[in-house]
C-alpha cells in the first residue's frame, strides 16, 4: 500500500443561497485512521461529507479520495458511505438489498459474509420496511461493506437508535475498523467520538476549530479554565504564560485553558495586574461546547493545529 491519503480536502467552500455552510475547510485523513467529525447540527459536517463522496461539488477547493476524484473512487469501490436516513427500498428484503448493491460492482464480497459482518444474517429475508431503525442502519452498513472499500464514511450513523442498538452498531464498526479500514464518521455525540475515534476533528461554522487525537481532546477537557480581569496594558505580558491550550482575551477578561492551572495562576498573580481570578475544572462536554458554541466577538484559536499538519 502506498502512502496516498484516504482523503485530501483543500480549501473547501460551499454555499447554499445565503448560507455559507463550509468555509475553507482543509482535511487530510491518512489510511487506517478512525476519525470522528464532531460538531453541532449545522456545522457543515454533512455538506463536507457530500463533497467527499462527490454527491455535490465544492464552490471552490478540491477533494481527492485515494488520490482520485470522488466519482473515480466510487467507480472502483474504494469508498462507501452509511447515510443517516433513507437510501433503502422498502419493498424488498434485506438480502435483496445487498444483492442489488453488490450487482452494481464488477467484484464484490459474498452477500452472506457481508450480512454476517453487519450482524443481520438472521433477518436476511425480512422486508426492509419491517426492520427497526437499528436494523436498517446495519443494513446500510452491510451495503457499504459490499465493495470492500478502503474508506468508509458514516454520517451520524446512530441517530434515532436506542442504547442497545447504538452499542451493537458500534461494535460491528469497531470490529471492522480493526482490519485496517479507514473510517470517518460524523457525529454530534461527544461520547461516540471519544469512544470510537483515534482522532477527533471538531468543526464549527464550516471550519475546523480543533484537530487532534482523542487523548489530546481529553487532555484539553481534563484541564482547568482560569479566568481573570486583566488591565489592557498588561495584555502583552500574556506572552510569558506557561504553555496553555488556549488563551483568549475579550472585554477586559482573560480566559486560559490549561492542564497546569497552578502555574498559570501563579504567573498571573506574580507578574501581571490580574485580579478577580476564578479557576474551574473542564469536562469533555464543556470543551466541546466551548469550541463549537456560538460566541460572537471571540475568535477561537485552533487548539492543536500544529500537532497534525
Amino acid at each position, binding site marked *: *500500500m*502506498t502512502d*496516498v491519503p484516504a482523503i485530501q480536502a483543500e480549501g473547501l467552500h460551499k454555499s447554499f443561497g445565503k448560507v455559507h455552510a463550509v468555509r475553507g475547510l482543509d482535511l487530510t485523513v491518512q*489510511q487506517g485512521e478512525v476519525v470522528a467529525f464532531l460538531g453541532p447540527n449545522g456545522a457543515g459536517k454533512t455538506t463536507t461529507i*457530500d463533497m467527499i*463522496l*462527490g*454527491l*455535490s461539488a465544492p464552490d471552490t477547493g478540491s477533494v481527492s479520495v*485515494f*488520490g482520485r476524484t470522488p466519482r*473515480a473512487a*466510487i*467507480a*472502483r*469501490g*474504494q469508498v*462507501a*458511505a452509511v*447515510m443517516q*436516513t*433513507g*437510501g*433503502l*427500498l*422498502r*419493498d*424488498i428484503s434485506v438480502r*435483496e438489498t445487498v*444483492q*442489488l*448493491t*453488490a*450487482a*452494481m*460492482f*464488477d*467484484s464484490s*464480497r459474498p452477500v452472506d*459474509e457481508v450480512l454476517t459482518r453487519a450482524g443481520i444474517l438472521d433477518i436476511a429475508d425480512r422486508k426492509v420496511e419491517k426492520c427497526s431503525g437499528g436494523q436498517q442502519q446495519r443494513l446500510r452498513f452491510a*451495503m457499504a461493506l459490499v465493495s*470492500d*472499500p*478502503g474508506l468508509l464514511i458514516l454520517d451520524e450513523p446512530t441517530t434515532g437508535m436506542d442504547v442497545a442498538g447504538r452499542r451493537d452498531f458500534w461494535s460491528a464498526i469497531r470490529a471492522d475498523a480493526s*482490519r*485496517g*479500514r479507514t473510517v470517518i464518521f460524523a457525529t454530534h455525540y461527544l461520547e461516540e467520538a471519544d469512544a470510537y475515534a483515534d482522532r477527533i476533528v471538531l468543526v464549527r461554522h464550516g471550519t475546523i476549530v480543533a484537530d487532534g487525537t482523542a487523548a489530546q481532546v481529553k487532555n484539553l477537557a481534563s484541564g482547568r479554565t482560569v479566568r481573570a480581569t486583566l488591565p489592557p496594558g498588561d495584555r502583552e505580558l500574556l506572552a510569558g504564560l506557561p504553555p496553555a491550550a488556549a488563551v483568549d482575551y475579550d472585554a477586559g477578561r482573560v480566559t486560559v485553558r490549561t492542564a497546569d492551572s497552578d502555574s498559570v495562576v501563579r504567573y498571573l498573580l506574580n507578574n501581571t495586574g490580574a485580579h478577580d481570578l476564578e479557576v474551574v475544572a473542564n469536562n469533555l462536554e464543556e470543551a466541546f461546547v466551548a469550541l463549537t458554541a456560538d460566541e460572537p466577538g471571540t475568535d477561537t484559536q485552533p487548539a492543536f493545529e500544529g500537532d497534525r499538519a
Partner: protein
Amino acid sequence: MSQTTAIQDRKPSAGGINSTFLWIEIKRMLRNRRTIIFTVLMPAIFFFIFGLSNKDQLLPNGHSYGQYILISLTVYAAMTAATGAGSQVAVERAQGWSRQLRLTPLLPGAYIAVKAAAALTLSLVAVIAQFIIGALAGVTMDPQIWLTAGLVAWLGSLVFAALGLFVGYLMPSQNVMQILGPALAILAMLGGLFMPIEIMGDTFGEIARFTPAYGIGQLARSPITGEFDAVWIVNVLVWLAIFVGGAAMAFRRDTKRV
C-alpha cells in the same frame, strides 16, 4: 475473509445494466399490488363495462365492436402499466434510493435503461392479461391481428414509460400514480380508447388527433379497421420526443440539485 489491500490496483466497474438489477426491478413491480390493480384489474373492468354489452355489434368494415374496444383497452392497459412503472422513480427519489445509487458505479443511463426495460415487462404483462380476458369473453381475431395489435400496444407503451419517468423526476410525491391515474384516463378518453373517435363529435374528434394516446390507438386498431395514416406515426414520435426530452431535462435538474 476480506482484507482491504491493493486499493490502488482496482479497476473501475463498468456501471452498466446488470441482470440482478433488472430481475429485482421486475420482481418489485409484479409484487406491487397497486400496479397490478391499475394495469390488469382496471382495464379488465372497463372492458366489461364498455365492451361486453355490445361486443357483437359490427363496425362498418365488418369487424366487431368487441375487437375494437378490446384492442383500445389493451393500449390503455399497456400505457398505464408503463407510466406507472416509470413514475416509480418519484418514490425512489423520495426514499433516497436514487442518491444511494450515486454511491455505486451504476451509470445514470443504465438506471434509466433498466427502468424502461422493467416498464416494458410490466406493459407486456398488461397486454397479455387483457388479451386473455378478451379471449375468455368471446372476442375472436386472426392470429396475426392479435400479434400486430399486441406488439403495437406493447412497444407504443414506451412513450408512456418516458412520460412516467418525466413526471417521476418532476414530482417528489410518493403518490404520483394518484395524479397520473386520472390523467391517463382522461388521455385515454381523449385519444379514443374508451369510445370510437367517430362518435366523439367534431371538436373533440379534432382535439383527439393531438393527444398522446391517439396515434398508438389508431395504429393498434389498424389491422381491424384496415386504415392507415402516416400522421399517426408522427403523433407517436412527437410525443415520444416530448416525453423523453422532458424526462432528460428533469433528470438533469434532479441530479444537479443535492
